[in-house]
């Protein structure tokens, strides 16, 4: 959560609103912010922290673990048309990769703006593809798998 907060300025510059959700109460969120998060991140986490007691919202997003009674780690990207674009769900032991989140946001914003598609491993500046009849069978001419890696 604090890693997302550290990159908040970059996400904000992309026009992204972040909502953090756990099954903790809003009161617990307040104390966590005041007692710990504000000491990890100057000013604390700058986005709303929502309370999903009972995991009802986690259930419809497929992240509620009934056995543990908590929402496991899940990250969802929603576009301005309110369409869910991406989801990533992890068991709790492994934290997120915020850089990958930012890459995906940039890729979705690019495809919405241009109508192009972004091949595997795309980052801004790398070649995109323009889907259509002319591209069928010709992707190999325009894109090499090695391009997918840094």
């Amino acid at each position, binding site marked *: *959560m604090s890693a*997302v907060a550290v990159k908040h300025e970059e*996400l904000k510059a*992309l*026009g*992204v*609103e*972040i*909502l*953090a*959700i*756990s*099954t*903790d*109460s*809003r009161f617990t*969120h*307040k*104390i*966590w*912010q005041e007692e*710990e998060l504000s000491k990890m991140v100057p000013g604390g986490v700058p986005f*709303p*922290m*929502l*309370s*999903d007691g*009972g995991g*009802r*919202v*986690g*259930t*419809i*997003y*497929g*992240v509620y673990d009934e056995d*543990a009674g*908590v*929402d*496991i*780690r*899940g*990250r*969802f*990207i*929603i576009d*301005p048309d*309110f*369409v*869910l*674009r*991406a*989801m990533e769900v992890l068991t*709790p032991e492994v*934290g*997120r990769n915020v850089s990958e*989140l930012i890459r995906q*946001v940039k890729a*979705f*914003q690019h495809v919405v703006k241009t109508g192009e598609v972004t091949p595997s491993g795309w980052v801004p500046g790398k070649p995109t593809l323009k889907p259509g009849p002319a591209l069928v069978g010709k992707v190999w001419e325009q894109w090499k798998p090695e391009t997918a890696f840094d």
Partner: protein
Amino acid sequence: MAEEKDGCVKPSKGPIVVAERQSNGGQPTVQKEEVKMLARVGKPAPDFELSAYINGGFNNIRLSDYKGKWIVICFYPGDFTFV
């Protein structure tokens, strides 16, 4: 979204779904039935309203209030956990 005094018992609606067929003309209703996973990429994001800690105060937040913006939702297992 003005901050309101927290009355301790201001329930949030939780998941908000529009039933496919219902008698009230398609108005959103609060789901009382058994809930299941609705999130699918390429489909409308399931809407909800939850209580929140925001800007140092408490308020209810509805996801669809952010319609028109890029939104990232991060679920996490709990406050004071380690990752």
